């Protein structure tokens, strides 16, 4: 294949914005977007809430500066302040840009873009389109990319970078339709493959494919990952699937009850009750379950989110989506019965370590979106800041790669390397004799992560988690692919995704074990307070001779001094 100037891996919000911006920056460039699902299927479509920008449409006195402060405070001071500056100052422009391209934002009475309040924000600055914000943003970007004639390789599964010395030669990927392993020689590669919170599997709100493929590929190529231990949990996921019941349910007056029928939030947040901050409510649910006050079921322990006292009318008019979800995925009508819930892994703050221009340590390789870590979210991301992140840094990635592509010569990817890749994924995975089942391993990984590397962490649990992950990695060597076909082998894809999750799980557990403090989403029972003198720094995880090796990177400070985070 003719070498590309830019290969973008991922067709979510970050990847598509990068593609558009790169074409705008230099229309002569040869650009390709690879995605394992059709771009419009990407997980960006699941974001309901909205994207933050200090437009000042709703609160006239809102400012970029306030948005910056809220973000830094929300991050528990682990975000890099120069990066947050970029994020928040670019926000109004990028939201208007989307608007100009056709995103159907909901509107205020004065016909400007509508905004609503969101957790952790001092002003109502979350721009939205009903409850389908991510979906409409993704649609707009996909449409605009079709208009610009972006070249898509849909249903291509990225396998690895081809690395020559300190440089990348490009990407190796499998064409799902044919099962062929193909070379994408390229001057530059942008990773935009989304998050890794699905490693918690049915304790996760994420799509099945949010398996951190890009992070795992980069990691295997020797690129450092940053702050992997920070995984955000949302308090109310559905018991069986982990899918999200949005905060709206509690906002309208829903109760959280344990098996004794007690509104247990009285114990943890007597004033705010069910409406306390996300991390606090998540920890409260988890405590109830750990102390034996949860319900039991084959699908695991859970608590009740009770809406029955709100009445059929209110539920039907204000919470129709939640009712539909609960009926579709739990078979429970919230008008009649309480919804079974428990905390669910929702967002990955960590990712591929990049600078503010999205460059990684490997020349010509960039990362953006949930897959990258600039870092703008630090130890805890604010709702509505992630869509913003993928747009702002997706665009920067596209521009930077387009400007820098000229500096590099494209590498070549040999037939021998492709053949070796093919052998690795296809040859090695039909072991004879005793073999391991994919589903069992994946279930075990989710379990061990939820139990040992979950909301509450503690030295002995984390050690247990680390050794269990190691055992799973060993067992994985004997995993069997039960579909032998070349055409659309989804079973093979699942197994490859599991491999990526196993590699990354190791970095999450290692980072969590090392970090002896509690900060943002990372709560250590044995180190319950934030320790700025020892731990005000980023964690780096690099693969050295097959092992996770931890390093550190200072946090870039700016106008805001460290303060205690209270709300």
């Amino acid at each position, binding site marked *: 294949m003719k070498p590309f100037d830019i290969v973008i891996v991922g067709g979510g919000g970050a990847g598509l914005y990068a593609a558009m911006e790169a074409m705008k920056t230099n229309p002569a460039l040869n650009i390709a977007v690879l995605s394992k*699902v059709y771009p419009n299927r990407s997980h960006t*479509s699941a974001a309901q809430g909205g994207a933050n920008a200090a437009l000042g449409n709703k609160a006239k006195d809102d400012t970029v500066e306030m948005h910056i402060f809220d973000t830094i405070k929300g991050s528990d001071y682990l975000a890099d302040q120069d990066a947050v500056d970029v994020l928040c100052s670019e926000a109004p422009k*990028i939201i208007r840009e989307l608007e100009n391209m056709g995103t159907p934002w909901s509107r205020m009475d004065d016909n400007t873009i509508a905004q609503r309040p969101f957790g952790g924000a001092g002003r109502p600055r979350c721009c939205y389109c009903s409850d389908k914000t991510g*979906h409409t943003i993704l*649609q707009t970007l996909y449409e605009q990319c079709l208009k610009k004639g972006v070249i898509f390789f849909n249903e291509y599964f990225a396998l690895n970078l081809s690395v020559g010395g300190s440089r990348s030669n490009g990407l190796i990927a499998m064409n799902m339709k044919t099962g062929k392993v193909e070379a994408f020689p390229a001057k530059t590669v942008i990773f935009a493959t989304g998050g890794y919170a699905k490693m918690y599997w049915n304790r996760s709100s994420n799509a099945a494919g949010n398996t951190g493929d890009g992070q795992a590929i980069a990691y295997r190529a020797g690129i450092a990952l940053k702050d992997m231990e920070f995984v955000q949990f949302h308090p109310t996921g559905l018991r069986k699937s982990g899918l999200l019941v949005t905060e709206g349910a509690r906002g309208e007056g829903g109760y959280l009850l344990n098996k004794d029928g007690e509104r247990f939030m009285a114990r943890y947040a007597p004033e705010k009750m069910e409406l306390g901050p996300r991390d606090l409510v998540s920890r409260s649910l988890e405590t109830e379950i750990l102390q034996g006050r949860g319900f039991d079921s084959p699908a695991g322990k859970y608590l009740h989110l009770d809406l029955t006292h709100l009445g059929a009318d209110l539920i039907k008019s204000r919470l129709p989506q939640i009712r539909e979800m609960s009926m579709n995925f739990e*078979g429970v009508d919230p008008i009649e019965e309480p919804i079974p819930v428990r905390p669910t892994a929702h967002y990955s703050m960590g990712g591929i370590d990049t600078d503010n221009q999205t460059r990684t340590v490997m020349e010509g390789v960039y990362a953006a979106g949930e897959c990258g870590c600039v870092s703008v979210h630090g130890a805890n991301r604010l709702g509505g800041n992630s869509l913003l992140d993928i747009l702002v840094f997706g665009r920067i990635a596209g521009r930077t790669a387009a400007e820098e592509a000229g500096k590099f010569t494209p590498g070549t990817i040999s037939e021998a390397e492709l053949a070796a890749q093919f052998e690795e994924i296809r040859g090695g995975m039909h072991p004879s004799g005793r073999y391991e089942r994919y589903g069992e391993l994946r279930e075990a990984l989710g379990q061990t992560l939820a139990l040992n590397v979950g909301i509450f962490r503690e030295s002995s649990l984390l050690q247990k988690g680390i050794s269990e992950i190691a055992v799973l990695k060993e067992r994985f060597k004997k995993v069997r692919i039960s579909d032998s076909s070349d055409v659309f082998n989804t079973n093979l894809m699942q197994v490859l995704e599991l491999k990526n999750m196993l590699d990354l799980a190791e970095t999450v557990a290692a980072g969590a074990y090392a970090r002896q403090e509690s900060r943002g989403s990372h709560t250590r029972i044995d180190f319950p307070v934030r320790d700025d003198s020892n731990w005000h720094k980023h964690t780096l995880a690099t693969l050295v001779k097959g092992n996770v090796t931890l390093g550190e990177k200072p946090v870039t400070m700016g106008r805001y001094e460290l303060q205690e985070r209270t709300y």
Partner: protein
Amino acid sequence: MTVSTDQHKEGKKDVTFRVFRFNPQVDSKPYFDDYTIPVERGVTVLRSLNYIKEHIDGSVSFRAFCQAGICGSCGMRVNGLSQLACTTQVWDVLAKSREPGIIKVEPLRNLPLIKDLIVDMDPLVDKMKHYANWVDSTMPEAQMGKKEFLISEEEFLRYDKATDCILCASCVSECSILRANKEYVSPAVLLKSYRMNVDSRDSMHEQRLAELVKDHGVWDCTHCYRCQESCVKSIPIMDAIHGIREDAIESRGKNDTSGSKHAEAFMTDIEKKGKLVEATLPIRTNGVVWTMQNLLPMAMKMIMKRRTPPPPPLVKSVKGIKIFRTMFREMTEHVKQDHKSHKK
């Protein structure tokens, strides 16, 4: 027997999934495989398929991603009806199943089959490109991001529902015209085209419309409503189709294409007689020459078989035509008013 009563207590039912199988590498034609599994209340078709794939047969192939009804990956036919596997409850389907205890799962129709339940979505994407399913902004690229367009709530509501579309292709699979003509624009693409055409930020309404009125376009639709009935997001697709047609007649004139002429002739007949004057409908739609060339042979055959429609002078008005005409005029007037207030 004890097993089944026990299962009943737990609220489980044995369900047989009859799954469409086809692997182009080895199969010369498709076949069905049966998988019987216990399913409790609250379990979706997708979860059942996942279970089958993980525990019984890893080669069963289908697409799924969000598992929450938002990404549009898992469109398939469940007991004959195109829908999302991830939002479809097994017990609900069972309750309506013709064969007790059996659920038939097949790929979407009207798109090329790849393997098992997976069809090729590229033809749909190609049509989105062909009909320019994007906003071609009136704002020059260099000016973008500087200021917002001001959009009224009213305008927003015009395309709000249409932007719910998740491109799952259920409507495509159900469309009766697509079965006969794969080049037909497709309901989802009509919906998206309409959504773009009513967006005041867009600048290529005319070109898009010009494309939509050509062959395989909006006039080919038979108004069977199947797309709307099957839409997984309950989008009123027919409003979009009617919207495009009215727009086409309004801005391109009645005599623009055979489609618009046909619609107009239809209206005239209904107003005058309360029913169709079928014999001359083709002439009024396509002109004398076309009719002679294309329909004369068929007309001859019909005459031979004495199945011709009555000649125009013999077509009597239906009973109560006076009242009908008044109602008809009131209705058209009403529709016109409605449109005017919409346009404002």
